[in-house]
């Protein structure tokens, strides 16, 4: 080859080399920029809504206190005591206004029950009703709570899960709560971060699923050993056991997990149930930390089969922290959103949006991860997330909270964390091997994400634009129409931070409709009811949930935005009992209370 030709080729390759480097920079900016925090509040309503943080104005002044465990964990306390801020929305007194139960997690701290007075303010009634002093030393501390009418008396009861003794409180006519944990037959100690109400066998009584995180023989305040940590960052199976409490209908529950085939010791951080496979029974999705997700397919309420691998959702180990369902394409199919960790320069697990794609040979559903394609993959150290139509445009948007430990600013524990996280089980499993945090942050001070959905496969991040500008360590997020105006407000529980309430103002001219269901043959809370709304050639499916996200529960009532459509063609309700009910042309811009026909 002649030297001039060689030189020309070298110039050509060099240009390509430089261009490739430039392309990497440009693509990184473009990709991260489109998913990163939006620019800032612009004061306009160009996204169709605006959020205003108004907790104090509403009379809510709550600061979460974190737990403090055995002194042998002091060096890594911020990361092992990093959960416990939770919120559950429910109307405990049946006055038509959504109330908030909020957990606290220091020994001796008090939980709150904020009763919605209906005049734009809330008042804490937990002490008066017996739901405040539930974190006494020796009983563990709160990690989350759920509303559900387990005795079908029409009043929402409260289940409280803890690192400690789980508790069930029966709602006595909205006037008081009575502890019935012993009668219910709950175990003496579970280190749980996830639970849901569901009626897995469709017998009309709400059952309970409870997922251990740490092994249940660990008392985090009195350690027998420091070998309590996950045995692996990706393949850990030394976490807490799982429980299914079947409601016998007489106030007692029987534990049926082994008989049902739900046996796992993965480190579950989030659980949610919905009919994903179209059998009429709720399937169970578990988002596990330090490992793969699990999807338990319900076999007629009698047995569950773990189909995570076959369905695609349980193949790649990540750090699962959220489980929520949404019909993101308005095509009657529920997708699963699972959050993970993304930290620039260190670890890019990216969140998963599992969209149903096809039927498997066995009749199950195969899912495809479209989080990157749809722009909802990068959310920092992501925790709770919920689907909801925040701008009432007829598509489900998504709110995500994030941030692990916000301690010293401009400090980071990430290097030490990343170093030991790849270590062999003998190293990683022993807390004494973990480097001390020494006041450093770990993915702290992160901006939240609020993605609006264009309905055809693309989400746009608008959190800062619309006013969701906090950088607290978010854990739980719940959506509820707190003022019965036809707009979903956002409630955020922050670890060692304040409870935030973002009041939502939606642009005028956008219609909505909501449904509050009450079961008769089905469980009275109607948890598991599937409601398909048809309007203007569109349709959207939602299911009444007994808990979703991370340590959270949205309002039970189902809210649909309709955009400019002023008319709904029909609503098809499939009750958990299997009955189907159709309502033609329900009036828009109002809440419909629907009782299951007998």
């Amino acid at each position, binding site marked *: 080859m002649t030297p001039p030709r060689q030189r020309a080729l070298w110039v050509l390759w060099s240009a390509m*080399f430089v261009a490739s480097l430039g392309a990497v920079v440009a693509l990184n900016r473009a990709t991260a920029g489109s998913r990163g925090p939006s620019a800032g509040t612009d004061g306009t309503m160009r996204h169709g809504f605006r959020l205003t943080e108004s907790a104090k104005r509403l009379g809510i002044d709550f600061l979460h206190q974190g737990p403090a465990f055995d002194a042998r964990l002091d060096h890594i306390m911020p990361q092992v005591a990093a959960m416990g801020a939770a919120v559950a929305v429910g109307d405990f007194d049946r006055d038509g206004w959504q109330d908030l139960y909020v957990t606290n997690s220091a020994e001796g701290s008090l939980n709150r029950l904020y009763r919605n007075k209906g005049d734009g303010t809330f008042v804490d009634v937990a002490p008066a009703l017996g739901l405040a002093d539930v974190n006494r030393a020796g009983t563990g501390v709160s990690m989350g709570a759920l509303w559900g009418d387990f005795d079908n008396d029409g009043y929402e009861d409260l289940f409280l899960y803890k690192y400690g003794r789980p508790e069930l409180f029966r709602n006595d006519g909205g006037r008081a709560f009575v502890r019935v944990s012993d009668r219910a037959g709950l175990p003496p100690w579970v280190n749980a971060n996830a639970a849901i109400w569901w009626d897995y066998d469709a017998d009309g009584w709400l059952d309970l699923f409870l997922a251990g995180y740490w092994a249940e023989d660990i008392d985090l305040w009195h350690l027998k050993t420091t070998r309590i940590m996950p045995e692996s960052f990706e*393949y850990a199976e030394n976490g807490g056991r799982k429980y299914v409490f079947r409601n016998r209908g007489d106030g007692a529950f029987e534990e049926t997990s082994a008989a049902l085939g739900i046996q796992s010791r993965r480190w579950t951080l989030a659980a949610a149930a919905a009919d994903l496979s179209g059998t009429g029974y709720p399937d169970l999705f578990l988002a596990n930390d330090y490992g793969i997700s699990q999807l338990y397919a319900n076999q007629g309420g009698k047995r569950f089969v773990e189909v995570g691998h076959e369905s695609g959702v349980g193949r790649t180990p990540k750090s699962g922290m959220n489980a929520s369902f949404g019909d993101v394409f308005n095509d009657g199919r529920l997708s699963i959103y699972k959050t993970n960790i993304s930290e620039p320069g260190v670890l890019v697990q990216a969140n998963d949006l599992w969209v149903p794609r096809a039927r498997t040979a066995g009749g199950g559903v195969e899912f495809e991860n479209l989080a990157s394609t749809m722009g909802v993959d990068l959310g920092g150290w992501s925790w709770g997330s919920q689907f909801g139509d925040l701008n009432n445009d007829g598509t489900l948007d998504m709110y995500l909270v994030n941030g692990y430990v916000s301690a010293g600013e401009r400090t980071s524990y990430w290097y030490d964390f990343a170093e030991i996280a790849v270590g062999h089980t003998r190293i990683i499993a022993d807390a004494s091997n973990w480097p001390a945090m020494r006041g450093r942050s770990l993915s702290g001070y992160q901006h939240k994400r609020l993605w609006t959905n264009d309905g055809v496969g693309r989400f746009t991040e608008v959190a800062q634009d619309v006013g969701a500008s906090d950088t607290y360590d978010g854990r739980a997020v719940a959506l509820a129409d707190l003022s019965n105006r036809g707009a979903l407000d956002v409630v955020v529980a922050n670890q060692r931070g304040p409870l935030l309430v973002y009041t939502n103002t939606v642009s005028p001219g956008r219609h909505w409709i909501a449904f509050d269901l009450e079961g008769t043959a089905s469980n009275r809370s109607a948890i598991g009811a599937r409601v398909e709304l048809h309007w203007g050639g569109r349709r959207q499916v939602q299911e009444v949930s007994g808990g979703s996200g991370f340590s959270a529960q949205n309002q039970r009532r189902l809210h649909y935005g309709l955009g400019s459509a002023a008319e709904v063609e029909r609503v098809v309700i499939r009750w958990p009992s299997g009955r189907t009910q159709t309502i033609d042309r329900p009036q828009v811009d109002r809440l419909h209370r629907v009782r299951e026909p007998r």
Partner: protein
Amino acid sequence: MTTETSVVSTAPAVVSWRQAMQKLDNRLLPPLLITAILVTAHLNFGILEAYERTALAIVTAIAAELVLGRMSYGTWLHPASAYISGISVGILVRSPFLWPYFFASLISILSKYVLRLNGRHLWNPSNLGVSAVLFLAPETVSLLSIQWGNNLWPMAVIWLLGSVIVWRVGRLHVSAAYVVSFVVFAFVRSAITGNPWQATLAPITGPMYQLFIFFMVTDPKVSVRSKWGQVVVVIAVACVEMLFRLNEVIYAPFYALFLVGPAALLIEMAQGAGLKAQGSRPERAVDKRSASSSLSRP
């Protein structure tokens, strides 16, 4: 990560295992090992989130090598070297997007044709490609950071197989020197930072390091030629890595090799030029099996 070529003599009709091993084209050993590691790891531990990402990295690397080689030298180059570059990128790079796999592979191969001096390329291709995307795209790219499950046996098998392969290609001393250096420096780091030695030692128990030890630091095309020189260089890599680690640089080993490897080559070239000027020849590698057939080509 490239491999060298060896000339194979005529084989007898019946060959022993040992003879078969000796007969095997050395260029095929590392690709076979790394493929075995990938397949085993994925089937057992699901380390690949999506096949298409790794496939894209491999196809990009091989296609780039074939096109660039053909245009530059008028011949189709053996794809083994590019295959290792591509598969290494496919394993090591973690990103939810496809483009980092494409560009990491492309940059790896292009570097062999662009960053050259005296007919040699200076950087281990995939070290450069991976380092480039890690450095330039921190928001969207990270590195493989998981374990081989919770058992010791997968790690033991890989260590054993890897050791056999690098011994076969005459690079065991390089891997061994690096491992010993890393361990020593891990204790030094522990003493300096106050972190438990188990934590500072932890990275070497992970798969990322096994790929680094067996496929990157052993690359003969970017190694100095004397055996002891190679040992000194790899100790220097471990030392620079320690300095990076003390400054909490997550991707310390890659950046250390990125800096030390070319520096060592440049020093060697300068020494060679000096000796040439004095009328003598630079020291050549003693081990025939590690001698490259052609240093003028990638």
